[in-house]
């Protein structure tokens, strides 16, 4: 294989987009933390100077990857994945705790965040597994294995704890869907997400009753049997009256919630028995679905209270409008929206932002870098950046679809999804559409680890693409 082939076959359009993004990112970092006494963008004591070094290193990495044989990545897919898992375990033991999360290796003055590099590793392993010859994608075994590949690192990252980084692993649902898993997977995830929000917005009793009504209605729609539905309803009502009465006798006043739960448990059990005896079809799945949904609502409620830290709970609550506290946990979002909003249509101009520079916006060079774009370049700037990303994604989908090898295509979708979810969550959180979870904007945010991880991901794919003809 000659180097000339790579240069000829490399998708230079994507490379151009990549260079444009890191350059814009660098300019905005410079502006976000511009320091009068260090006016040079190449001052290496400042973050903007450092970012320049990270960019140079990223470009070196990109070139190095292009020089590697494209079969390497498929061959070593699992190995790279194993290394990533081991580093994630190691960081839990010897990592350094920064801001309450044990997510960093610190060597001298240098810090590296292994969770960033787990993302390309998962994309490789997933692509390798799903492209195995003769794999039956509909089998439960396959489904479970895919789940393990994706969520094992997510779980380890959750232990750090770094909820935001763990969350992005859900992105791998897209390549899995693309490869033929039932469309239900997307529908189900969407439903669960919707329920999650509903659970937090409304009280459980109301939700429970809504689920029941939907359940009965669904039965009626499925079975077209009004009589059976009425019988089922009466059974439930009977159980409810009995359990409410019993609780009342034991001194528990207005125990609607408990009574509903008990009645539901008994009636679901009896429905199941009746369905078996009377051989009523289709009802099995329905009862199962209702049971799962009920459990899920409890699980959400429970895990919200127990797994999310106070500040995360508050951030979710604020995003949902349950809690309003502009100077408290909502402060970041509020300030970030002010910064972006104050940019107006045309922006305040390069280095002219006041909100980001005067420390109103926290983390203005990392997670909130988009604020600088919004404040200084206005709607024109934000529109352009989003357009840039969308073009980038569409181009990558085109590249993915032109692959002959399944491995390359699946990998392509894997990284598209990961970069996309970062893009979406990051920007959404700066404009108040998503809770603040602290993940970087790809290619824009300050930081070596994330820049390198995204560069590596992208260039592995470009290398695979360049080798597609071989």
């Amino acid at each position: 294989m000659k180097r000339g082939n790579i240069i000829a076959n490399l998708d230079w359009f994507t490379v151009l987009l990549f260079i444009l993004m890191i350059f814009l990112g660098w300019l905005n970092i410079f502006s976000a933390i511009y320091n009068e006494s260090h006016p040079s963008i190449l001052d290496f004591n400042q973050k903007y100077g450092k970012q320049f070094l990270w960019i140079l290193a990223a470009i070196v990495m990109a070139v190095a990857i292009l020089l590697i044989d494209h079969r390497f990545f498929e061959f070593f897919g699992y190995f790279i994945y194993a290394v990533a898992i081991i580093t994630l375990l190691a960081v839990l033991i010897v990592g350094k705790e920064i801001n309450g999360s044990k997510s960093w290796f610190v060597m001298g003055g240098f810090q590296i965040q292994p969770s960033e590099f787990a993302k390309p590793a998962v994309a490789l392993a997933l692509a390798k597994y799903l492209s195995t010859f003769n794999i039956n994608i509909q089998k439960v075994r396959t489904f479970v294995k895919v789940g393990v590949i994706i969520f094992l690192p997510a779980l380890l990252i959750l232990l750090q704890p770094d909820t935001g980084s763990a969350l992005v692993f859900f992105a791998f649902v897209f390549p899995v869907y693309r490869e033929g898993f039932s469309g239900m997977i997307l529908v189900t995830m969407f439903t669960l997400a919707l329920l999650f929000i509903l659970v937090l917005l409304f009280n459980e009793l109301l939700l429970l009753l809504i689920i029941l009504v939907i359940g009965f209605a669904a039965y009626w729609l499925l079975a077209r049997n009004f009589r059976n539905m009425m019988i089922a309803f009466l059974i439930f009502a009977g159980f409810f009256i009995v359990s409410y009465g019993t609780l009342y006798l034991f001194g528990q006043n207005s125990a609607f919630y408990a009574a509903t739960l008990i009645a539901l448990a008994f009636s679901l059990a009896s429905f199941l028995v009746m369905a078996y005896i009377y051989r009523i079809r289709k009802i099995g799945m329905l009862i199962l679905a209702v049971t799962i949904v009920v459990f899920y609502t409890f699980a959400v409620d429970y895990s919200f209270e127990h797994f999310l830290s106070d500040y995360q709970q508050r951030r979710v609550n604020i995003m949902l409008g349950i809690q309003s506290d502009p100077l408290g946990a909502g402060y970041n979002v509020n300030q970030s929206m002010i910064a972006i909003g104050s940019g107006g249509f045309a922006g305040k101009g390069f280095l002219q932002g006041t909100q980001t520079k005067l420390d109103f916006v926290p983390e203005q060079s990392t997670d909130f870098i988009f604020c600088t774009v919004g404040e200084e370049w206005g709607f024109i700037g934000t529109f352009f950046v989003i357009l840039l990303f969308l073009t980038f994604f569409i181009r990558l989908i085109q590249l993915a679809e032109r692959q002959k090898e399944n491995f390359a295509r699946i990998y392509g979708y894997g990284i598209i999804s990961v970069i996309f979810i970062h893009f979406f969550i990051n920007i959404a959180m700066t404009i108040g559409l998503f809770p603040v979870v602290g993940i970087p904007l790809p290619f824009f945010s300050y930081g070596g680890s994330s820049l390198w991880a995204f560069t590596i991901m992208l260039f592995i794919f470009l290398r695979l693409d360049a080798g597609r003809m071989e």
Partner: protein
Amino acid sequence: MINQYSQRKYIIGGLILLTGLILILRLFYLQVINSTYKLSAENNSKREVIQYPARGLMYDRNGVLLVSNQAAYDVMLTPGQLSRFDTLSFCKLLGISVNDVATGIKKARDYSRFAPTVFMKQVSGEVASVLQEQLYKFPGFFVQTRTLRKYPKNIAAHLMGYVGEVDKNLIEKNPYYQMGDYIGISGIEKNYEEILRGEKGKKNFLVDVHSRITGSYQDGRFDEPARIGTDINLTIDAGLQEYGELLMKDFTGSIVAIEPTTGEVLCLVTTPSYPPDLLVGRGLSQNFNTLSGDSLKPLFNRALAASYPPGSTFKIINALIGLQEKVISPSTEFGCQMGYSFRGQFLGCHSHRSPLDLREAIQHSCNSYFVNSFRKIMEDPKFEATHDAYNNWRNHLLSFGLGNSMNSDLSGELKGFIPKDDYYNRYYGVGRWNFLTIRSLAIGQGELGVTPLQMANITAAIANKGYFMTPHVVKSIKGSDTINHRFTEKHIIAIDTAHFTVAIDGMDLAVNGGAGSTAGRAKIEGIIVCGKTGTAENPHGEDHSIFIAFAPRENPKIAIAVYIENGGFGGTWAAPLASLMIEEYLTGEVKRKYLEDYIFNAVIK
């Protein structure tokens, strides 16, 4: 094979475009349609106001206030927040010209656009309060309260040092300081800077477009309260210091007094001096220039940084070394015929009876006696060569704290000079010098350099009969039980206590021995003062008058060294002056008005 699910690419691509569209719509709403955020940003400017803590106060050893604070108001400017304002009424208010405003703004801009700079220093409280009320008219300006030093007693300028603005170099080295901050530049203000200054705090305010404070930024979450400076109690006795400065007002020289058992400096007078309130506030730099241009060098702290030959006071040290090295005994006698002559070299002496023993030799300050004993020290058969004996002798001197900085808590101490044998080796060649070459060291002349502080310390060591405590001026720091441990460690001198008693006998005689005593003018009724005169040869003019003394003889409370430049013989001016100081300190008042008048009417060439 055509992938059967390939149409799903449209769903995924569509989802991506859809979310992109959602983001764009939301941004369009935030940035173009909705204007509340723009307003918020305008009303949402942060101002960081530094909270300057009051500097710690200084008291003397009896609790008399020496240094306190007064409020001062600086007009500050943040160029980034500047917008059109009524320049004329602004100028009228501050009493400056439009040109001043323009240069001030330019200067601030050159420094930083976002960091506040001092626009005008120390405006009066009246102006400050009027300006405070009208700040809304002058966006970008605000008033910053600071504290300046105030000196209720206006004494001890050199000792306390002064406070001035930090310079650029220091700001770069130490990020704690910012433009316009004050820092201790000399004296205790410098050495105890970190204790006295406290810790700056800051308050973050939200201000609106009109520069009005609308509230606390984030409920003060990022505020840091200022920590007030810590008060210091000095070892100085304000009364004694003031009296010393009064006595010295017409002399050039210094007085250092130490409490022997503790090493506490009781007074540190250096003249000519200046009133400390000259170096405060706006007049500082101009007054400083005047003072530093003065030919009398009033900024020079002679007590610490002037080095003189010790003169005859040094005979006591040589006596002690001779006794310790067993080359002489208290009863050793040497004759003296108006001087010492050897191999054609002659060193004169004044007239006194002959021969004298050691005690009498100190009393009469006989040159011949001490050249003879110095010869014995240098030609001590214990040592192979003169330079070995010399090094041994030199080590004794070092143990008295000579030839080195005392490592006190005063800034600007000079080391003094006790030559190494190399010095003579280089000058005369190895083995080509002997006691005769360096005989003037016997009587404290020649190459020796000793500061008044070191001299006072030697006196304290003699009073203590063999040890000293490192001299220091800080007695206690508020809130702390201890002072630096280096001030509580005894420095033991390797000379037996019995020898000190002999030397003290001589010093007693020198003051109280009647006829022929060199320091009779230091005598005080009812108090046994032990002292020794000295005269430092001065190639530039009249000799310097030196006197060291301690009192009372038993349980000494004060050891003192007095230097009067061009004062001639030590017994003439320095001895009576030291005597007055001792009387003042031990009895609290001076009864010998005639002696005071004698000093006040002194005429010195």
